[in-house]
């Protein structure tokens, strides 16, 4: 990311939103709204003094609500560019008109509460849509009690918990009482392969659940891991071996059966009700912590963006592509990279993005352009 922003031929517009797109392949005009950071970007040195003194405290989006952040904050530690942002809904100065502590503390005098949204017009030859994905809101699957039972977490929350730079410093502590969790269960297919929510396979969950379970065992050798799966979908080179490693070397318990519901026992531990389909028995399991493998869903606003760009969505809301031209949309000169076109793991997304970049390069260097096989406008 840093390399990208430092590149002389790449202009990064972060904290921005596309407002309008006009023109055709080879000559697009894109109107981008740069949202106000309330910080003069050319003056800011990124020292972070302001974020330390700010009195505001709101749930941190990057840590998925597991920690608090200030009203003036960096989105995450490696955020590019290293310039903080003021949250206009939480900042006392912007909401109530009093405070201004950051302004006093800023040695560079970069804080500017009067900043407004700026429209930037850019003329480009081609567009690559790589807006990523969101995770399924597990609270919609009410049977799993996400949001109601404290020790039921989403997979991304788990990633933050197990991360050394995360809110608990890499310790797997139960959100209910802060005590370490020893018995951890991973529930797959939450919101995916389900006609009531998303009727497709999210593709990554089997693998990252195995990884998560191994991480927990590495972190605490005395812990127990249980993975509830529907089918092991480990398609890829070495994926099945990885899965087997989790089973044989790390002692992760894999249970075939989709969890039906999660309730809370008197001590606040989640209880899973499921059928072990190999043993043909309905059972329960009480764990310290349950991690839900949320489905991958189209990022919020993908539909609006697609309407602006004049490109089609598939029936799930991802951007529609053709099997034979997986990076091409139905409009010439607009390409797709990564999960906005459907669930993909990292390696696949990188390859996909490289292909999209190559296709984009073809458009701008018209001589090299070859007609693509499949749907083109």
């Amino acid at each position, binding site marked *: 990311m840093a390399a990208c922003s430092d590149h002389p031929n790449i202009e990064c517009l972060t904290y921005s939103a596309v407002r309008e797109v006009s023109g055709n392949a080879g000559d697009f005009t894109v109107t981008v709204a740069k949202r106000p950071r309330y910080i003069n970007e050319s003056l800011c040195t990124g020292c972070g003094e302001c974020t330390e003194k700010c009195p505001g405290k709101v749930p941190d989006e990057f840590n998925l609500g597991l920690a608090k952040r200030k009203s003036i904050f960096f989105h995450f530690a490696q955020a590019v560019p290293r310039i903080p942002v003021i949250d206009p809904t939480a900042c006392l100065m912007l909401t109530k008109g009093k405070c201004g502590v950051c302004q006093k503390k800023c040695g560079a005098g970069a804080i500017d509460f009067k900043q407004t949204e700026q429209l930037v017009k850019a003329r480009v030859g081609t567009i690559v849509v790589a807006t990523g994905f969101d995770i399924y809101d597990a609270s919609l699957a009410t049977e799993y009690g996400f949001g109601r039972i404290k020790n039921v977490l989403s997979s991304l929350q788990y990633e933050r918990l197990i991360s050394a730079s995360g809110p608990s410093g890499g310790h797997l502590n139960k959100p209910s009482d802060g005590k370490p969790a020893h018995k951890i269960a991973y529930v797959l297919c939450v919101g995916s392969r389900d006609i009531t929510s998303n009727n497709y396979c999210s593709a990554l969950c089997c693998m990252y659940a195995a990884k998560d379970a191994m991480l927990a065992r590495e972190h605490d050798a005395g812990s127990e891991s249980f993975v509830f799966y529907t089918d092991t979908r480990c398609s890829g080179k070495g994926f099945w071996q990885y899965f087997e490693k989790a089973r044989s070397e790390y002692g992760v318990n894999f249970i075939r*059966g*989709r969890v039906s519901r999660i309730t809370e026992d008197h001590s606040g531990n989640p209880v899973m009700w499921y059928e072990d389909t190999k043993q043909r028995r309905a059972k329960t399991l009480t764990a310290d912590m349950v991690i839900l493998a949320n489905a991958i869903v189209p990022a919020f606003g993908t539909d609006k963006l697609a309407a602006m760009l004049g490109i089609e969505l598939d029936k799930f809301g991802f951007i529609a592509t053709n099997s034979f031209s997986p990076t091409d949309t139905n409009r010439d000169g607009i390409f797709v990279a990564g999960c906005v076109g459907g669930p993909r793991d990292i390696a696949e997304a990188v390859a996909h993005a490289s292909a999209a970049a190559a296709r984009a390069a073809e458009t701008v260097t018209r001589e090299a352009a070859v007609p693509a096989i499949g749907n083109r406008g």
Partner: protein
Amino acid sequence: MSTVTKQPRKAEKAEEKAPATVFEPSILAFACNWCSYAGADLAGVSRLQYPPNVKLIRVMCSGRVSPIFVLEAFKKGADGVIITGCHIGDCHYQDGNVKAETMFKKLAEVLRVLGVEPERLRLEWISASEGQRFATIMTEFTEKVRKLGPLLSPEQIKAQETGPAESSDLKELVRETGVYQCIECGKCTGGCLMARFNPQVSPRLAMKNFFVSYFSHKQPLKLLSMDEVWYCLTCETCHYHCPAGVDFAKFIVWLRSEAIKLGKTGTPTHGGVMHAMMEFQALGLKQNRLDWVDSSAQVDEKSDTMYYVGCLPYFEPIFTETGAHPLAMARNTLKILNALGIKPSVYEGEVCCGHDLYWTGNIEGFKKLAALNLENIQKTGVKRIIFSCPECFYTYKILYPQFFKTVEVETVHMMQLLDEKIKKGELKLGRLEGKFTFQDPCRLGRLLAIYDEPRRVLKSVKGLDLQCMEEIRKESICCGSTHWVSCSSYTKQLQKYRLGQAVDTGASTLLTACPKCQIHLSCAAKDLKTKMKIQDYTEIIVQAMEQA
């Protein structure tokens, strides 16, 4: 020679038939092995005459006579039924006759509501030495029934016969229930409320077994004879859980209807009397089902709004000892409707909606009742029907249109009506202190997605503290039986579990909105001796209305 003798015999028969003005009733007598049967024997050896209309069935004890025996006898053409046993205190099994007496009282009341004259059923104590008494009672009873005339006409008896069973279309079933889409993830079994306590139950395996047996042997016979077919509560928890959208409850109904064709009926609760009672209503007798409507209630026979009462008048005599009062629901509903300025009609010709027969797989019985009800709706010309029972509401709203395409009547449940009227401020509710919790009925909740209305209605009562149980709304736990089949130790465990959740909320009263929830949970609460009070929500609304 033979032709000569035959001729006068025929003539004799013709002569016998000619004065058909004297009605010969068919009387069925149940006699206990130890007293009354011996009494009948004594009457025989003493050459005491009694009418040949009486057909005697020996039972080991009068307590063995199940209400279903009596109902079946009436259905099959008996004009009178008499149960005889030892005198109180003389029972060979200590208190079998006391049980018989309790049963008799309930049954007599049910029969009265069903439209059978009380004189047609009799209970008598006859000891082994009372041969004379036996003969006198039988003669007297026969004469009494003779005067009453026949209960059912020959046509009515014949109408009960069903034709040869048609084989169902499996392709249709697969398309309608989606069983073929099963991905065998086990989510149904894990969530199944019965499977929690009964390890034999597994919806997933039931479907798998069905397909294996059907496609390898072309006959699902093995599965149909298994108890598994009858364990299902049809609460539809599995349907709601299923990621492939399989309608397992519908599949179970199909299996049951097939099993019935093979003569298998599962284990109905209350000796099958409930289902017999519902089938009895399809016979077309004039019933006495409106006795409960007292003078204070305002009903208008010409109103275009009808209040459909359902089976509450039948449940009342049967379940009073559990502490449940199903009829109070009907009385309270009328009170609330009157307070809202609605004068509904209550229809004497109404019959059971057929819900229980449908879910037990008796589709023919269901269709008969449904046809009668729809005919009545057309006859009375009502525009709107108000329901207090979620099961009746579901049956009218969802099941009737599936079988009969021409149901042109608005159906409203009391919860919807109350919610709407309270929002508009048309119902004034006073203050009512107390901690309550609410049991979602499966028909109103999971099957019709009416979750918010009951909560809004109850919360509109000031001072009412509504607590949430652990598993509510879509995850709500069934009261244990939806259609009077397979009440077992497992369902008792389920009820105990649910009552435990209710106690955990700290509430003193569990509010129900379905007569079956009220009956089953009251029964369990009585068995478990918990202090949790089970009450119908209409009682709370009426109390709050009185406080206003």
